């Protein structure tokens, strides 16, 4: 249960929180986590996660060294209805008690998104409730308002297996993408490093563990796009450089593997650190009236070295670093239910009825519709 100290911490205006409580069922199936949750917003502004059920499919993808879309989709359909039942039971609510059903409609692996969105539409239709089609990225973007009652605006760094981007979050539905990876997501780069060095899947924790025993200065790996202005990132070249270095030094001892991991982690930490510094500077320019806040989300945010660097960059910029609890930083359904609540509250305040039962599943769905397409983003995987 998460309760903010004061409802007045919210700066979204008189319409928020809404007149009555809002209780929403959330469903998330866009990658390799199947999740269902029930979240409630009380009229006094209290936010409560009534239930939060997640089943990870890690074991099913392990042998493949990465998430296999068809395997993921098969796992989602197998267990999703059972998870929804469990989430409602844990929350002690029935379908009648819900104000809406919210589901991830993209971006993500389309087979899984279709399972979650279709299940949600069926539940909504049979229960006579509205459906909210949530952008997965919006779920991440608004999580800090669920956990920390954070007012707008703030800067978000989303670093996961599917996404790596800086977003300026100015309101519900008001997102400006400041920069994004032009090829691989950072979590994907960790997974591919682990796959190359046979450290297992998921790669993030494995590479981090090996890096602890390694010398980060032994191999000089490139810091992609640091020499260019702007906030976009790239990790594909680093992956190639790592492979070339590994092959040049084969056969690799355990120490070589540790040094490669440490050197890789150092390279990406330098890149993320510098791009965060630039993003914070940009934030300060756009919103000089407030002290900057940097929110981090995504599985890679759990990496200790990256986290330490972000803390130091935030401190140098006079910014506050907000890191929601790990479970809510990685893929989950509570953030989807919460994004649904925020969008419902907005619609209610405007006197509008929100029901997106005709919304399609979308493999690609940038949060910032104005942002130009990023070069190289037309690749496989969950990109936005």
């Amino acid at each position: 249960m998460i309760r903010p100290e004061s409802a007045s911490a919210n700066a979204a205006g008189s319409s928020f929180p809404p007149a009555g409580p809002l209780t929403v069922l959330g469903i998330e199936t866009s990658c390799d986590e199947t999740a269902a949750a029930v979240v409630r917003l009380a009229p006094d502004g209290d936010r409560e996660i009534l239930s939060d059920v997640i089943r990870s499919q890690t074991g099913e993808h392990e042998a493949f060294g990465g998430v296999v879309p068809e395997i993921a989709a098969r796992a989602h359909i197998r267990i999703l209805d059972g998870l929804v039942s469990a989430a409602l039971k844990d929350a002690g609510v029935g379908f009648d008690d819900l104000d809406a059903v919210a589901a991830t409609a993209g971006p993500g692996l389309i087979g899984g998104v279709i399972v979650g969105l279709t299940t949600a539409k069926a539940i909504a239709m049979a229960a006579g409730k509205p459906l909210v089609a949530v952008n997965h990225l919006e779920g991440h973007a608004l999580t800090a308002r669920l956990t920390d009652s954070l007012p707008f605006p703030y800067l978000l760094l989303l670093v996961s297996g599917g996404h790596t981007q800086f977003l300026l979050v100015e309101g519900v539905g008001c997102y400006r993408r400041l920069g994004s990876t032009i090829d691989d997501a950072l979590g994907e780069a960790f997974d591919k490093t682990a796959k190359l060095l046979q450290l297992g899947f998921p790669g993030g924790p494995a590479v981090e563990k090996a890096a602890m025993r390694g010398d980060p200065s032994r191999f000089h790996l490139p810091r992609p796009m640091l020499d260019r202005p702007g906030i976009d990132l790239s990790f594909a070249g680093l992956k190639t450089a790592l492979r070339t270095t590994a092959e040049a030094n084969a056969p690799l001892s355990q120490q070589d593997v540790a040094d490669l991991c440490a050197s890789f982690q150092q390279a990406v930490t330098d890149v993320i650190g510098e791009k965060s510094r630039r993003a914070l500077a940009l934030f300060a320019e756009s919103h000089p009236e407030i002290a900057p806040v940097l929110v981090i989300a995504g599985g890679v945010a759990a990496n200790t070295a990256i986290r330490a660097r972000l803390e130091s960059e935030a401190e140098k910029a006079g910014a506050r670093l907000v890191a929601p609890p790990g479970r809510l930083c990685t893929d989950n359904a509570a953030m989807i239910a919460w994004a649904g609540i925020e969008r419902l509250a907005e619609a209610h305040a405007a006197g509008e009825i929100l029901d997106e039962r005709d919304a399609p599943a979308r493999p690609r769905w940038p949060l910032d519709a104005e942002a130009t397409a990023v070069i190289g983003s037309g690749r496989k995987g969950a990109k936005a």
Partner: protein
Amino acid sequence: MRLLAIDTALDACSVAVHDGSGEVLRLTTASEVLGRGHAERLMGMIGEVMAEASLPFAALDRIAVTVGPGSFTGLRVGLSAARGIALVVGAPAVGIGTLEALAASVSVGEPVHAVLAAKGGEIYAQGFAADGTPLEAPQAVDAATYGAALPPGAALYGSGAAKLVAASGREDLRILGEAGWPDIAAVARLGTAAEVGSHPPEPLYLRPPDAAPARRDIRLLA
């Protein structure tokens, strides 16, 4: 029995509501040939058919859905909808084999082999006795091999029939029809008769996912 039937396994997106029994049986159906995009159309179609039948979801006794073989994504669209509705209504969802429904779509009073084209040289096939009892489990099988084992003059039904005949060179086989998907009325009928426990609403893919295990680069590590 008030039953909702759903089929999105193949090129058609079909929905039926089966209400009452005997002389008062009413069947309301809708079917569109889509090829793809079932996920966008299905829920709207369910809403339309339920409205036309003037039946609230809460009145449903059962939901029947085709489980495969068929398009992997298509199967999951139908199953997601059926299981989602079943969860809210508190009624069971029953799974009906696509080939069984296909065989039940043609009434001939003789054994029939339901056949759909699959990838490469394969077909999806299942044989049924004259009374509809399955003679074998549904299978993904080489068309020539399956054809060679059929009795003389066997009756075939489904869009894979011509492929089977061509692959096996069996000119004696009889093609009754080449439907690419089952009649939704047959799905509803089989759904009504199905025993709940033995017809789980789970996909029958008949093919593993296309994925190769990670290759181990043994040269790299000492």
